[in-house]
């Protein structure tokens, strides 16, 4: 046990310092059709391209868009976000994208999560991994980066420490005799003698047991009447909120929300995509309410690998396009505005008809979020070959 106790004690003092601000990255897997999430209702082109799946103009009842300004409205299922926009805390950036024209989920997700471009040299690891490594110090705790789920997201590859969990209660070693200390000690020796990545990850897993033991003692009651839905996404956000409040040094948390590859019967105000939008909207609302007293410490960014085409396809769905809208919820960035170009301008050249034109390379957006929210001073440490263009998020 001595070995473990030493580890825990030696790294505890500076933990609060490292975890002052937490960036929560939500990846909508599958290429989300953000055109129906942030609806350009002022444009007839939108309605002509989407005769079946377009979201009605605001004012037409519960199935119509929720007005943000004279041009844009939110998907009705994202209604809880309207208030955040009005408070000046939610920013939306249109026409964000990569330079990747492959239309491949895996290429585009990988490229984005690695923070690379199609033409440049890969920088190695993920963009969040590089960010965490660049600011790592000996006091970086085992919970500085957490991914909710079962697989390590590419964006966190290369981070000094990452934990992949579904719930905090899970973080415990269980042996038949119940004498876990002896087993933990043997594992510490076995993994301590292994010099590879596996050995490192084993040691971090053991370290984690110590750190979360305190959090496991009582049940969690969300603050300010926040109600998380009982799905994986709601549960994941709840666990992230607990970690933020517990000030265990969490700097980056990653969550996935899947089901956005809507080639087929996407639906409009109701239907396949609307269900996903509801999970997203309700989750963010609960998370934001729960962390009302910690808002200065949290930034949330919602991204996807590419947007979809402007016109609907034969299956009442949408095929792979390019540009998409990014949502950023933060007290440290300029919200209450919709940045980027008008989305209903069809790009004819690169990907065939119908992709949203890119007005901002995604790295400009990620870079401003890291700078404004997390205090990153040298964006080149994260995006080595890239010269960012101003997006308008910085205060």
């Amino acid at each position: 046990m001595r070995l473990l106790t030493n580890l825990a004690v030696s790294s505890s003092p500076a933990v609060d310092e490292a975890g002052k601000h937490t960036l929560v990255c939500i990846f909508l897997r599958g290429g989300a059709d953000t055109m129906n999430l942030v609806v350009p209702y002022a444009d007839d082109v939108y309605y002509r391209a989407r005769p079946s799946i377009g979201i009605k103009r605001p004012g037409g009842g519960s199935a119509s868009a929720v007005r943000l300004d004279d041009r844009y409205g939110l998907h009705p299922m994202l209604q809880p976000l309207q208030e955040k926009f009005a408070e000046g805390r939610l920013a939306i950036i249109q026409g964000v994208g990569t330079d990747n024209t492959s239309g491949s989920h895996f290429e585009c997700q990988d490229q984005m999560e690695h923070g690379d471009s199609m033409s440049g040299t890969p920088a190695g690891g993920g963009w969040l991994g590089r960010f965490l490594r660049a600011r790592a110090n000996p006091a970086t705790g085992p919970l500085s980066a957490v991914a909710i789920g079962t697989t390590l997201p590419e964006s966190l590859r290369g981070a000094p420490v990452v934990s992949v969990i579904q719930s905090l209660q899970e973080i415990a070693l269980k042996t038949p005799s119940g004498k876990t200390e002896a087993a933990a000690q043997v594992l510490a020796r076995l993994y301590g003698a292994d010099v590879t990545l596996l050995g490192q990850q084993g040691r971090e897993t053991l370290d984690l047991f110590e750190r979360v033991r305190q959090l496991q003692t009582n049940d969690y009651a969300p603050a300010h009447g926040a109600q998380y839905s009982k799905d994986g996404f709601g549960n994941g956000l709840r666990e992230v909120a607990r970690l933020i409040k517990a000030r265990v040094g969490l700097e980056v948390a990653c969550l996935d929300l899947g089901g956005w590859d809507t080639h087929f019967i996407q639906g409009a105000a109701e239907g396949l995509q609307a269900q996903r939008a509801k999970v997203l909207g309700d989750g963010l609302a609960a998370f934001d309410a729960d962390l009302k007293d910690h808002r200065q410490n949290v930034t949330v960014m919602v991204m996807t690998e590419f947007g979809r085409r402007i016109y609907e396809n034969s299956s009442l769905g949408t095929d792979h396009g390019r540009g998409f809208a990014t949502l950023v919820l933060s007290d440290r960035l300029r919200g209450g505005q919709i940045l980027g170009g008008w989305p209903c301008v069809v790009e004819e050249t690169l990907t065939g008809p119908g992709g949203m034109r890119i007005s901002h390379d995604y790295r400009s957006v990620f870079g401003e979020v890291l700078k404004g929210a997390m205090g990153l001073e040298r964006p080149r440490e994260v995006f080595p070959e890239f010269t960012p263009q101003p997006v308008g998020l910085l205060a």
Partner: protein
Amino acid sequence: MKTSRRDFLVSSALAGGVGMLASCERATSLLSQEAGQRLPDSLAVCDAVEVDPGFHLLSRATFGPWPGEVERLRALGREAWIEEQLQPESLDDTLCDLRVGAFESLHFEPGNAWEFRKEVLRDEITRHAFLRAVYSRRQLFEVMVEFWTDHLNIDIEKGDCIYLKPSDDLRVVRRHALGSFRELVLASAKSPAMLTYLDGRDNKVRKHFPKDAPNENYARELMELHTLGVAGGYSQEDVREAARCLTGWTVDLKRGMLKDLNLFAPARGVTYFKPDWHDDGAKTVLGQRIPAVGGEADLERLVDIVCNHPATARYLAGKLCHRFVSHTPAPALVERVAAEFTRTSGDIKSLLRVILNSGEFAESRGALFKRPFRFVVSALRAVAADTHAHKPLLDYLHRMGQGLFQHPTPDGYPDEEAPWLGTLLWRWNFAFALAGGKVPTVGIDARALRRVLEPGAKLKNPPSAKFADNLFAHACGRRPVEAEQEALTHLTDPGELLGAVLASPAFQRC
């Protein structure tokens, strides 16, 4: 319940609760045990410094050595063992067949699978794959089934795929797992499950824009993931043209009163070609012209073009070497395998022969990381466990991130080590639970293991250091190094020792 006095059977007796099924499973377990599917009376452990070459071959070409198989391989000779595995029908698999005999939903015509509840379908296809991996003697075949299941991934949680995947598993993956790559791709292209999973069933000629339009989803993955690879040199135009070739191939998932009355209507869940949805103009794919009015023959032309493309030989050779040899396979080996692919027009057995008999393979001992499925199955095999793969066991796989047939995206579960490193905790907890006989519905004979690895020991006494060494060597194929040996001296309970060995870094590798 007398038989359950024996340790071996305690857990399996609890497996299905009471009733017919449970007693069937008990009978199967007993019979299998009597027929020799258990720990042998003696074992020759591999206690050299390096991983034993036979153990190495079994770690890759099977889901991990079953006790006694290293000795059998030695007696038979390496090449003969490989040839035997390449002729799976020559290996009697009755005992395994018996374990999976009750899963009737797997054998129904795809259109009739709707008779079953989703839970039953999910349970049976998953347990079938799991039990075959643990108990089949046709291990290389099962390893290839896993490979193609990833390569031609279908997530049973998407849409109606759960009704269609059982027949895809049988008629596409299992039928061609050791056959011809071209036949495999052709069968997959027409598989109702694949047509549903990647939206090909909705791919039609562009008529009334934008109502009728091609759906490029399958055409893209056919090139990117199934044949050429993302760097295979195809263009976006090629994807569009390939999608045009495939228009009209569809499958009906709904059934209606009128359809049921119409004898000529296509059966539910069965693939058919709909000429008026087909784009019958000329196409050009990868520089090759497909003349107009090809009709349904366009599909086969397209499959020939992509399967015969040199990029496909390289891509498949690289992927097989990646799975069987190393995550950074020697280019020379990949070239040899690609050449064999071209020479044999994608004969899968020939490719495996080149890989498994290569020097590069022999030199790659311990270089790969077990994915969760292989980790769990190899642990069960190492201790000759008795299980019928019920939920408590399968739940561990979900925690480790590899629920069977449930990878959401068409690229299949990754081979790399990094995506799996975040769930080590669940491997450890599985290892300790299995070793202590605490995984519900899984039986292990801890006493027999002790007896065979520490002959003559009194079971009441704490195990000797020799037992720990032998246990490690039995599970990992080599003698423990000093640090490993020292670490294990801190445990005195035989069950926890076994848990620690199965949780060790060495057992995570193969």
